[in-house]
């Protein structure tokens, strides 16, 4: 039965995707992207990926829409030109889709426990996590410890992307011409959303911290928590105007956060070397190797969360400042 639910959600997803490509109104396309994100998160949950669904919830529902909309406000809402080489592209795309679908017939069936993916390292992770790290969430264990190098790389990609956006949008002549006093007030005149939003902000922050520190026991971790905390500050900025948000967490502080996150991560790795282990080997951080692993994961998750919060908020402010 649950398989049927998944199939239904996927069908809706395909319809949404076609509608996204067909519409020439970019605002509508962004709204439909929001729907696609919700559908795909539901699907991730059906496919047992609770952590991934939580990430998609944190990123797709709020931050992605906010970023796309602020970019639309700076450019244009309408797609003016017709598609180029429509027929040729359709032929290419259809042919490639056919080849891909043909290739899937060789794939193991959905949910097959004997598929090559399931028989390689995954059983080892599931078996050894209680022994080496002793935390219930295997995803966090793999993310933080077994594949710590990967995560370090991802954190640096996020870091680089954030710095890139700041380089692109942090300088130059802004093109907007809105009156300063009007742009700064946010949604302050919409009383009801403002009151409700103010009630929600502390809860979102609290939930973000819960996700950060509960990530070893349930779905969660630094990536999700960073996005959720950033979302709460973005909510504040939308309600009270961007200036008030900047006076709470200034651009300088955010820059600091962007830099401190990877530094914490790297420092934990180097501490491993100094204490006689390997880079990112947390076992030596404490006299008890298991406790050391847990401490290491806690620290690097904190680093990840700080980086993600800093980057997402800086990016949001960079786009918002451009509109002035």
């Amino acid at each position, binding site marked *: 039965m649950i398989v049927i639910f998944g199939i239904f959600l996927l069908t809706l997803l395909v319809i949404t995707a076609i509608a996204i490509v067909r519409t020439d109104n970019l605002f509508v396309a962004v709204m439909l992207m929001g729907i696609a994100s919700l559908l795909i998160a539901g699907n991730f949950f059906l496919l047992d990926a609770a952590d991934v669904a939580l*990430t998609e919830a944190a990123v797709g529902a709020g931050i*992605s829409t906010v970023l796309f909309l602020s970019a639309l406000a700076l*450019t244009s809402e309408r797609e003016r030109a017709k598609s180029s080489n429509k027929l040729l592209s359709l032929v290419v795309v259809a042919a*490639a889709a056919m080849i*891909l679908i043909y290739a899937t017939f060789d794939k193991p069936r959905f949910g097959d*426990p004997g598929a090559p993916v399931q028989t390689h390292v995954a059983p080892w992770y599931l078996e050894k996590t209680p022994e080496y790290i002793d935390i219930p969430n295997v995803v966090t264990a793999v993310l933080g410890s077994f594949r710590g190098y990967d995560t370090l790389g991802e954190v640096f990609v*996020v870091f680089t992307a954030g710095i890139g956006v700041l380089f692109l949008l942090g300088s130059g002549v802004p093109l907007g011409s809105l009156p300063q006093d009007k742009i700064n007030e946010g949604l302050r005149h919409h009383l009801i959303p403002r009151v409700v939003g103010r009630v929600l902000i502390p809860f979102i922050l609290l939930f973000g911290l819960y996700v950060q520190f509960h990530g070893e026991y349930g779905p969660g971790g630094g*990536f999700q928590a960073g996005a959720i905390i950033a979302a709460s500050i973005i909510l504040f900025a939308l309600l009270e105007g961007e200036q008030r948000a900047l006076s709470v967490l200034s651009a300088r502080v955010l820059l600091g956060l962007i830099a401190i996150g990877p530094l914490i991560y790297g420092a934990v790795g180097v501490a491993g070397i100094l204490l006689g282990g390997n880079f990112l080997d947390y076992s030596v951080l404490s006299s008890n190797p298991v406790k050391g692993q847990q401490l290491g994961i806690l620290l690097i998750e904190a680093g990840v969360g700080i980086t993600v919060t800093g980057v997402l908020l800086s990016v949001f402010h960079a786009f918002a400042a451009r509109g002035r």
Partner: protein
Amino acid sequence: MEILGLYNYWVFAILLMIGFYAVIAKRNLIKKLIGLSLFQAAVFLLYITMGKVDGGTAPIFSDTGAAIFSNPLPQVLILTAIVVGISTTALGLGIVVRLKEEYGSIEEHEIQEIDER
């Protein structure tokens, strides 16, 4: 039922190609980025689908004593990829905004025309 076992992969192929179509056929740069996001979503779907095990549950141990868990590795890869994806999309949007400021347009062919002048 046997053939439905491939449905997720077909959706992956179709979504991937819809995103790809938006990237190659559309001239609006933001539309191209939206297409790229769809493309990403398709890849995420492929990975997570491969990690699913029949009768399994999410790879988080609990007191209920479930014995079968789905594969944690694809989930780790995609979890980080989603956040990286939004960061890189933001970078792309930043480039588009700068292009709009320099050229006054976000349509690919108009930008090319201005360049050729």
